[in-house]
């Protein structure tokens, strides 16, 4: 059996699981929350920053960068704290 046939045979289990989760979420709405990122009035000054080329990737089969989190606003990454920041004591993970 080749790869394509194996993929076709997975249609049953994948379809059953997808239907289960889709219906479960429709009933229980466990994935819903207030979209404060879009629904709060935010006045932002123009975004500033820098872009510096640091290397190249050749011959990868991945369509996206590993660990792409540009759209996952709520996924927290390493927090860098200012030593003098109010309400936040420097922690062991501080790097600056």
């Amino acid at each position, binding site marked *: 059996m080749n790869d394509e046939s194996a993929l076709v045979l997975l249609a049953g289990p994948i379809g059953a699981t997808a239907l289960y989760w889709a219906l479960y979420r429709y009933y229980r709405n466990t994935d819903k929350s207030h979209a404060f990122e879009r629904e709060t009035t935010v006045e932002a*000054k123009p975004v500033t920053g820098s872009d510096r080329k640091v290397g190249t990737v050749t011959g990868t089969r991945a369509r996206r*960068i590993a660990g792409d989190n540009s759209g996952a606003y709520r996924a927290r990454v390493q927090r*860098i704290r200012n030593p003098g920041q109010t309400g936040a004591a420097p922690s062991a993970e501080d790097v600056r």
Partner: protein
Amino acid sequence: MSDPKPPPPAPARPVDGPGSPHDVPPLPGTLPVDPQTLPDPIRDELEAPDPVAIDTASEELKDGLNRCPKCGGTDIRQRPGTDVLVCLYCRNEWHGERAEEAFGFGEGLDSLTGTVMASGARDIDADAASLMSFKCPACGAEVTINTENAMTARCHWCRHVFGLNEQVANGAVPDAVLPFHIRKEDAVARIRQFVDKRRLFALKAFKEQFTPENVVGVYLPYMVVDGRASAAVAGKGEIKTREYTRTQGKDKTTYYDADVYQVERRVDFTVDDLPLESSSERGHFDIRVNTNNIINTILPFDTKNAVKWNASYLAGFTSEKRDSDIEQLRPRLEDQLLSIARAQVEGSIRRYDRGVRWEQEQLDVHGTRWVSMYLPVWLYSFHQPGKNGGLLHYIAVNGRTGETMGSVPVQQWKLLLAALTVGTFLEGLAITYLATMS
């Protein structure tokens, strides 16, 4: 050449005594020096009381009685669907003053510094009781209000209506209240419509006991926060430079080449009226143990229209009490500000067509302003028995916008049966397809 002498050693840190690690810190609120021995200006500053930035307490309501400005009656209700108060004795109507204008909550976002709080957002006294008593000035009876779930009560002797209006101690009295606009009949219709679309796989007991008329109007406690912050993020981004396909036998594989960039972004921003649940129970979003995310989903409210606190708006509704102080809510605020910053910078990284992986983030909160507010929610609840006390399902309707969201308990075996049936059908199709191809 002179002989370089080593510098004298620095004095050793004291191992005990003032300033050493063994020094016992002073008790909170005490000073190590007697202020009386200090010059006048310094003493005045040290002895000045802690400022409450914006005083939202109502002097005229301190005795618990909200009197009609025309006849002095105390039986005052909200006219349903409006922000108007009506005296049930003389039918006089008047409009509550908007808190936004009355206290200047909407101004000065660009120059917010430090932590500014309204008087209703002060820290809750640890030993304050839930039961508040008033002495009726007309007949002398004691009228007790349980602030856990009510803000008004009627004197059982002379029928005066008392409201809890004093911003003291237990945090039950907020700075402002947003009155209900959606009527009960409307909320019932919305809940019925929501459930009608989810009947097929709903738990049998839920369908049998479904009575949306049991919906309860509840004022839930929130902190509405304005903030001024700067955030910075750093990470790696990739831009595709080449896409090509290699063929090995029958298999074709696509490969990509890309340039990798170190990406850094910074944004300064202000947020206006970000609502945070200030009841720790409601602010606990763990979908394994509760369905509080449902109540969170119906945010936001038109908090700009909130009126100055007046317990008369709460007559006929229940309420929940705040139990979180500003410092307890600060981590959640910072988390949300970081998320907002990440959303703001997204537009500036469009050129990275293979995406960006943020690796570090930084937040400086320059200033915040906290206002305690009661927001109106229609709540229908259903308790599903189960392990660890079961699960309480909510269907919530926003008392201003009518936005409806809910959690309907599922009949697991029905759902599994439907999924297995569809899976079996798809598998049958797949086998037929493979049989015809070979």
